[in-house]
């Protein structure tokens, strides 16, 4: 059984601090102390999400970080080889900080890295907000990696200023 913690916005989970030794001293290495300063696209729903996979069953827990009215899970689906066989989805409801909603799923994997997609919506501070998010399931396989690189080509050094270059090559339609 494996628990995976998925913070709704990765950015905050990437914070890097210089952990203070006791007694705390002013850390001179500002880059290590600096609070993560990555600005990102607007977040829409204040939720923390954890999920647990056991065999073909996945249990997702959604923990509200602030009040959400009319919170609803409007869709649960798999992509990249994951299919959802059945899902117990919570009913539309109002949720408050620390309230937890659970989604219980039965899935079928085709192997490798795939994603479970949640479509969520709710009203926060009077504004209706919607969001799709992805939960990774499994690990990328060698075959998937090869497929992902199907449009990648190497341009030879003798033909390019600056040496050999890897490019993502596409073709015009016309």
């Amino acid at each position: 059984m494996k628990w995976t913690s998925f913070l709704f916005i990765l950015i905050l989970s990437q914070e890097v601090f210089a952990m203070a030794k006791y007694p705390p001293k002013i850390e001179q290495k500002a880059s290590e102390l600096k609070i993560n300063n990555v600005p990102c696209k607007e977040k829409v729903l204040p939720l923390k999400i954890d999920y647990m996979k056991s065999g073909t069953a996945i249990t997702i827990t959604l923990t509200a970080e602030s009040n959400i009215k009319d919170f609803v899970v409007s869709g649960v689906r798999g992509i990249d080889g994951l299919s959802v066989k059945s899902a117990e989805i919570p009913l539309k409801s109002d949720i408050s900080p620390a309230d937890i909603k659970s989604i219980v799923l039965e899935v079928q994997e085709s192997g490798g890295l795939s994603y479970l997609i949640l479509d969520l919506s709710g009203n926060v501070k009077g504004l209706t907000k919607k969001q799709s998010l992805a939960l990774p399931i499994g690990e990328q396989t060698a075959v998937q990696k090869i497929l992902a690189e199907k449009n990648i080509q190497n341009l030879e050094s003798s033909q390019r200023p600056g040496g050999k270059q890897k490019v993502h090559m596409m073709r015009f339609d016309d």
Partner: protein
Amino acid sequence: MHLALLLSFFILLASCVPGAGGESTQMVEVRGYLSYDYVPVTSSGLDYESTIRKPMRNVYVEAIRPSDNKVVAKGSTDDNGNYLLSVPLKEKTIYIAAWAKMISPSVTIQDNTNDKAPYVIVSGNYDLDGNTVLSPLNASSGWSGSNLTGSYGTRKAAPFAILDSIYSAVKKVKEVRPSLSFKALKVNWSVNNLPASGTISLGQISTSHYNPSEGELYILGKANVDTDEYDRHVIVHEWGHYFEDNLSRSDSMGGQHSSGDLIEKSVAFGEGWGNALSGIVFDPDVRYRDTISSRQQTTAIEFSLEDGTDINPGWYSEVSVQQILFDIYDSTNDTGDSISLGLGPIIDVMTNEQKNTSAITSIYSFIYGLKTRYPAYSGVINALTNSKQIVSVTDAYGTGETNDAGGLVELPIYQTLVVGGANKSATMLGQAYRMNEAQNVRYFRFTAMSSSTTFNWQSSDTYIFEVFKKGVSQGGVFDEADSADPLGPFSDSLSTTAGTEYIIRVTTHPDYLFNTTDPVSFDIWLD
């Protein structure tokens, strides 16, 4: 009839240029036209059924000899998507390669899931025997079918759509301030980029964002989940963070944010700036839209930069910031807005006063800079900020601010410390709020008296404090003590410059607080 087809009546132009060995090489000018599919954004998602072709503007183009893939000519498209390349007359056959990149300024769209390989799209071969006008080329969206039942094939237009939105932003800024130069920018986009945390090279980028440590943008691209390549206001919003980081200054703590939040004032300014800039760049399309979900048929976020809802107006509201900035720019007067300065003065303040402020970047530092430049407009600027429940700005520190969000945030905005003077105390509300919410961030300011300043502090719970000089971190403390550890008083020194002002930012991280109910009290004094 297309312009490129009209050009087919042009006479073959040949000229001579010196070769490397002094011999002359006869050249011929080859012309063509490049476009990409643009999918409009609506209130109900992407409207594939209204797809139009837009010119690839300022796109780097090469003519390549097929036999050995040698580049025989290079250049860029103009604002109409036309290119003109001088190809050696001896070249009988070429193909065209259009890179998703601009040379001036340097912007490259690359695939972060494939070793950051840049995107390039190539034509079939052209026989140049008497043919100097090549047939038009288009990069398709890859969508086939209706909005509700269609699906994606290869998404060739996407990197060019992103590039074109950035070009729109560059062009808008350069129109008013042509002397500005832009640092090279890499934009990471992939069909694999999706809202999951994890490994960037797998596309798990969390969300579209600007990474200041790399100086690069990351843009979502996963079909049926969240794509942003046609959400052009999102693209310019993120480019706005690049602008702020490179040509102005951002002291933003970053992190999650949402309209309606009481957000730390530098985060609020940065996010509001990005939103406002997106409306300015695409004016009169002033509706910010962000599409998601199955077939991209859901618009998750939509608001007007001109008159969108601002449920918590004030210095801590990104919505207030974006509407103030947009009102300074636009020529439409509305409630509190009788100012119309255009974009130029905004850029001037961003690249001067905002960049050099001793305070933390915020709406106060921006407005103070604007009023310093335009004292005759003080009255109308006061009316504008007052309409957003922000005090009439008299300095970069928000001195005199009275809006405490109904008692949720502590005032004044900055407390002043005197070296050798009394201690000052700040209260943060703690567990119920994120680290970057205004309820959990407090500021102090002081002027150093010597080459070293001793900081003394104590707290009621875990805390983070950091010392800044003009936005540059000088050092700080992250104390993750548990309930058994003492929380001060502590003391430590930091090198300082006499006569220079420093800012101290104190915040708490809810994941590290051991007391989940009480506010955090933090005391500090200097020697």
